[in-house]
Each structure stands twice: as structure tokens, then as C-alpha cells.
């Protein structure tokens, strides 16, 4: 066997790289944002836990805003187009984005999806992220506003257990409030928890099945 390769002083070169891996995504996000703005499109990134009601919220928003905006939606999921079809029922263009195994959408996937729609046809875009209260926060997509959805069926500690994603939220939606009593969850406490982390976030309680509170979400998004 040959001897181990050992580095000798003087043969080692220190190369300064200063290469920010996460910055690559941020740069793409900025490009996406510019492209959207150039076309007069507002984009809303809907993040939140699995089963919290992100799709139901988008359905209700699309339904209510139909007369006012020309809309499209991107729907991120590991696999399937089940939720994408739910949104498409409302007569809007939906681009399903299957991430395979990745736990979040990223700016590159959005860049690709933006090529699939006619940007001249719309002025409002909903982007539903993969259900996850951790990773999506690390990857801005180029949206104007970010919503984080949690629901009372996830228990009383969803905000305190995942504080970081709430720092990136413009609007926090607490969904399924009709079940709060049955779940023994205090909605006021959840609101307080969100405000403690991010005082600038607008916090709205909803029931996305009945539509309760959806008008307040529209208001919070300035739509």
C-alpha cells in the first residue's frame, strides 16, 4: 500500500470563496419577485403545518376574490395533485409542484412554475408551500407576503414549539376555531404566542370550512 498523502506547508493553498449557499436561493427569489412585479402580480406564499387548512384557505380566498382579481395558484406537495385539483375546481389555473422528497418549495421551483402560466393573464398568485413548520421559512420564494397557517387540532403549543417560522409571517391564520372548545385550546393564547414572537404579524382566527374569518384574512393581506 502506498503511503498516506500528507499535506506539506507551502503546498496548501487557502482559497477564499465567500460563497453563500442560501444566498443562491435568495437571489432567485429576488428575480422571481421582480418578474412578478413587472407583470403587476401580487404573490402570497401560504406556509403552515400539515392538515392545518392551507388548501381550504386558498379555496375560500379564490372563491371570494374571483370578481376582483385574475388568479392562479401553485400547489406544492411531495406527491399527488389532490389538493391542486381542489383549488382548480374554482376555475383558476393551478400548477402542481411535486417536490419528491424535499420538505419545502424553493425559488428555483417557483421560477420553473412561473414559466407554465401566462403572466399577462393574472394579477394575484397563491403559492401553497409544502406542509411543514420548519424548512419553508429558510427559502423565500419571491412572494409579497407570507401567511403561516396553524389550526387548533394541532394542540395548544403549535406556535411556541415552532417559533422561528412565525418571524417570517406577515399574517398568521389560526384555523378550525369552531373546534377550539372540543380540543380544549385557547385561541387567545395562540394569538398571544404569535404576537410575542412577531409583533408586526396580523393574527386572524378562521374556520375555513364555513368561511368565518376569511374576510379578515383578505383585509390583513390588503387585497
Amino acid at each position, binding site marked *: 500500500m*502506498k*503511503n498516506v*498523502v*500528507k*499535506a*506539506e506547508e507551502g*503546498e*496548501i*493553498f*487557502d*482559497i*477564499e*470563496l*465567500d*460563497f*453563500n*449557499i*442560501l*444566498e*443562491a436561493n435568495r437571489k432567485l427569489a429576488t428575480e422571481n419577485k421582480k418578474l412578478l412585479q413587472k407583470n403587476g402580480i401580487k404573490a402570497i406564499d401560504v406556509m403552515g403545518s400539515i392538515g392545518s387548512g392551507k388548501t381550504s384557505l386558498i379555496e375560500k380566498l379564490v372563491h371570494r376574490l374571483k370578481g376582483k382579481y385574475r388568479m392562479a395558484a401553485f400547489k406544492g406537495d411531495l406527491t399527488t395533485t389532490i389538493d391542486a385539483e381542489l383549488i382548480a375546481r374554482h376555475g383558476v389555473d393551478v400548477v402542481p409542484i411535486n417536490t419528491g422528497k*424535499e*420538505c*419545502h418549495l424553493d425559488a428555483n421551483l417557483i421560477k420553473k412554475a412561473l414559466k407554465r402560466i401566462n403572466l399577462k393573464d393574472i394579477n394575484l398568485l397563491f403559492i401553497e408551500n409544502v406542509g*411543514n413548520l*420548519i*424548512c419553508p*421559512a*429558510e427559502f423565500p420564494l419571491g412572494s409579497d407576503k407570507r401567511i403561516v397557517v396553524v389550526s387548533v387540532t394541532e394542540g395548544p*403549543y403549535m406556535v*411556541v414549539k415552532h*417559533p*422561528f417560522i412565525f*418571524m417570517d409571517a406577515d399574517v398568521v391564520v389560526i384555523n378550525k376555531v369552531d373546534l377550539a372548545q372540543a380540543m380544549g385550546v385557547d385561541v387567545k393564547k395562540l394569538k398571544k404566542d404569535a404576537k*410575542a*414572537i*412577531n*409583533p*408586526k404579524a396580523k393574527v386572524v382566527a378562521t374556520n375555513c370550512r364555513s368561511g368565518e374569518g376569511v374576510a379578515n384574512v383578505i383585509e390583513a393581506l390588503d387585497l
Partner: protein
Amino acid sequence: MHEFSVTSQIVEAILKEAEKHSAKKVVEVHLDVGKLTFLGLEQVRFSYEVLVKGTIMEGSKLRIEEKDGIVKCSSCGYKGDFQYEDDPIYHIPTPTLHCPKCGETVEIVGGRECTIRDVKLLIDEGGKTNAN
């Protein structure tokens, strides 16, 4: 959760750089990781070990420097560390967007980076070899 994919981008970028310099071996890698990223350093190290196997990066030293989060307040001009949530329910210091000085909302200006600061490469000059 996405340490593996981020680390594979790091390894890919370094291998590319090493190739550019016709390096024989990558000896050391220096990363800066912001405390506000969602990157677990233990998982980054584990992914690194797995990913460098069989490449010229195998056996290289991975040095990770953690970078503090920095906020800026547009109301009072404060720039520095966060105000942390003091609820005992949190077992790790949980930063908030309240200004520690005036209580207004602050903006995050640092602590979200994951940067390859520099790499040390073993470069074989003029066909000289280090192995016998």
C-alpha cells in the same frame, strides 16, 4: 431537515473549485452558519462525512463557525442581538422581533447565512507527487 441537500450543494461547489485549481486534495473547509438558519450542525457534519466519501474531500477537516443573529430597529437605531422570549417553556433562547431597546418591531439583518468562507487545497505543482 434539509441539511443533506444544502451540504451536497456545499460539497459540489467545493469540488468544482478544487477542480478549477487542479487540486489533489481538499484539506480543510471553513463554513459560516448563521444561528437563524434551520441547519442543525450535527446533521451538516454527518451529511458532509457521507457526501465526501470517495472524493478528494475525504478526510478533510470541516470547521464550522456559528454566526449570531443581528437585528436593526428603524425606530431607535438599535443594532445588535435579539430580545429573547423569557417564557420558561422554551428550552433554547427564542428570539423575538421586539426591539430590546424601545420595543418596536425590528428587522433581521444577520444570522441567516450559510457561507463557504474558504477552503484549503493541496495543489500538486509541476507534476510533483506527495505519495510514494
